């Protein structure tokens, strides 16, 4: 019987040596264990040496409070670096993609359709690689450079692949992207376009992730969502920062967020909490609603059954590949957050997700990938459940662009919709017609 213990003693790796040479920011104090609170030196470490709990970045929020205010932030260019004091980076990188500053759009028509009076869409489909992952990668990549790491890598369910590949290219670093071999072709091609080396793994995302834990330890590469994870996860906070600033430095009653690992869900809460702690907003209660695909819903199941631990899903069965993590790292924290705030975690089946993609695209002119369908449907489900109440101000996150999952919107569509013979006034593809006005009139008159 052979036993391997991998990558626990992170301080003895090449990454650890690089970390010791990095100069810490006075406002970013250290890493700290989310489980036992034990501090760890700032570096590319991700698990507590004492209890193996996950590490997160700890700030001196009183120091931040002394240097940051709304005017300082307003004086800076749009984008995630305008919140520098609450990010684990000493200074914005000299190069890199233009990430963040995505619109917060009033969604009255969608709101009317799903019974929510005051609905906003945070349209994060409009990042450089068309998903919110650019936020997380921007932070991880900047920190990787500070640590002297020369190669960027990731284990991806799809959106992270393109984000990591593009960020690495922008910073002049090589990138290795590990994905499930059966991932949507558009997402693989996206990473290839930026010049990454894409390594398809014959297995589920959880298999990919397990392998990458070992690869990260052996190679010293900077895996944005593994050994750089404490910094990577901080990127999602900038969604909270932007939402609060776009609402005039206040918070909504409800946020609706997709849950894969649960990192974005929990970091949004951390982001709103930090804004209040440094005096940028007033602390008000926010209900956190999560959405998962019912074909891979370990967190929603734990929430629905009142469990405190998340039972992993071995074989995800959903077309929402971005959320197909059977063993989510922040699952337990996500359940705790939903419970503590009076929120919920909804499980959405694939046909309902597809219908929600069509709904938001046709009512609001925003075309999300599958995760966006999940969050719109989760908002509707939470409204029916009564977690969202009449008069609530609700922000739904759309975190990836529909062009990444081009077949998804068609699931469950009746044959007579979007068929290749659409008539005037119908949504769908009309038959080809000759380039003459008379042919157009014949088609318009119903003769086609």
């Amino acid at each position, binding site marked *: *019987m052979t*036993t391997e213990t991998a990558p626990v003693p992170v301080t003895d790796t090449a990454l650890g040596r690089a970390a010791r040479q990095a100069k810490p920011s006075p406002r970013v104090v250290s890493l700290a264990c989310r489980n036992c609170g034990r501090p760890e030196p700032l570096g590319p470490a991700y698990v507590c040496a004492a209890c193996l709990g996950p590490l997160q970045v700890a700030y001196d929020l009183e120091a931040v409070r002394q240097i940051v205010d709304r005017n300082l932030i307003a004086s800076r260019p749009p984008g995630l670096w305008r919140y520098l004091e609450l990010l684990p980076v000493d200074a914005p990188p000299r190069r890199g993609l233009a990430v963040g500053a995505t619109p917060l759009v009033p969604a009255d028509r969608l709101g009317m359709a799903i019974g929510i009076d005051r609905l906003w869409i945070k349209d994060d489909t409009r990042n450089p690689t068309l998903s919110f992952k650019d936020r997380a990668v921007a932070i991880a990549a900047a920190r990787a450079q500070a640590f002297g790491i020369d190669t960027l890598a990731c284990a991806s369910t799809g959106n992270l692949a393109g984000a990591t590949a593009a960020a690495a290219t922008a910073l002049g670093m090589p990138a290795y992207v590990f994905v499930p071999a059966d991932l949507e072709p558009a997402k693989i091609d996206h990473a290839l376009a930026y010049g990454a080396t894409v390594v398809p793994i014959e297995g589920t995302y959880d298999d990919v992730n*397990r392998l990458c834990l070992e690869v990260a330890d052996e190679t010293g590469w900077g895996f944005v969502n593994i050994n750089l994870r404490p910094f990577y996860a901080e990127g999602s906070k900038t969604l909270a920062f932007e939402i609060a600033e776009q609402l005039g430095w206040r918070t909504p009653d409800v946020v609706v967020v997709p849950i894969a690992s649960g990192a974005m869900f929990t970091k949004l809460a951390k982001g709103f909490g930090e804004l209040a702690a440094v005096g940028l907003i007033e602390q008000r209660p926010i209900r956190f609603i999560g959405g998962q695909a019912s074909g891979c819903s370990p967190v929603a199941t734990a929430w629905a059954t009142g469990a405190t631990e998340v039972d992993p899903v071995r074989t995800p069965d959903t077309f929402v590949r971005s959320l197909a993590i059977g063993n989510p790292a922040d699952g337990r924290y996500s359940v705790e957050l939903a419970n503590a705030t009076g929120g919920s975690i909804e499980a959405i089946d694939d046909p309902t997700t597809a219908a929600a993609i069509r709904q938001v695209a046709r009512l609001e002119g925003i075309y999300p990938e599958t995760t966006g369908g999940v969050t719109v449907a989760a908002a509707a489900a939470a409204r029916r459940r009564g977690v969202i109440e009449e008069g609530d101000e609700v922000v739904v996150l759309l975190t990836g662009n529909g062009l990444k999952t081009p077949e998804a919107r068609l699931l469950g569509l009746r044959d007579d919709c979007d068929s290749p013979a659409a008539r005037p006034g119908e949504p769908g593809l009309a038959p080809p017609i000759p380039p003459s006005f008379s042919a157009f009139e014949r088609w318009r008159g119903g003769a086609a």
Partner: protein
Amino acid sequence: MNVSGATVGEVIAGLVAAYPDLSAQLLDAEGALNRFVNVFVNETDVRHLDGLATPVGEMDQLLLLPAMAGG
């Protein structure tokens, strides 16, 4: 390293006996597996098998990893 045992639990007990410092990382106060550790037998998570009671043979490979799955 090679550790003997007929089940995952026995192998981990043997490992902790050989390296007592691992006890605090791998096991909780009741002797159960720390929830931040994932244990794989030949690349399958033991939670999908019989947990610590999962039988193991001479040629099986046990992998201990931090619970760190996230896209």
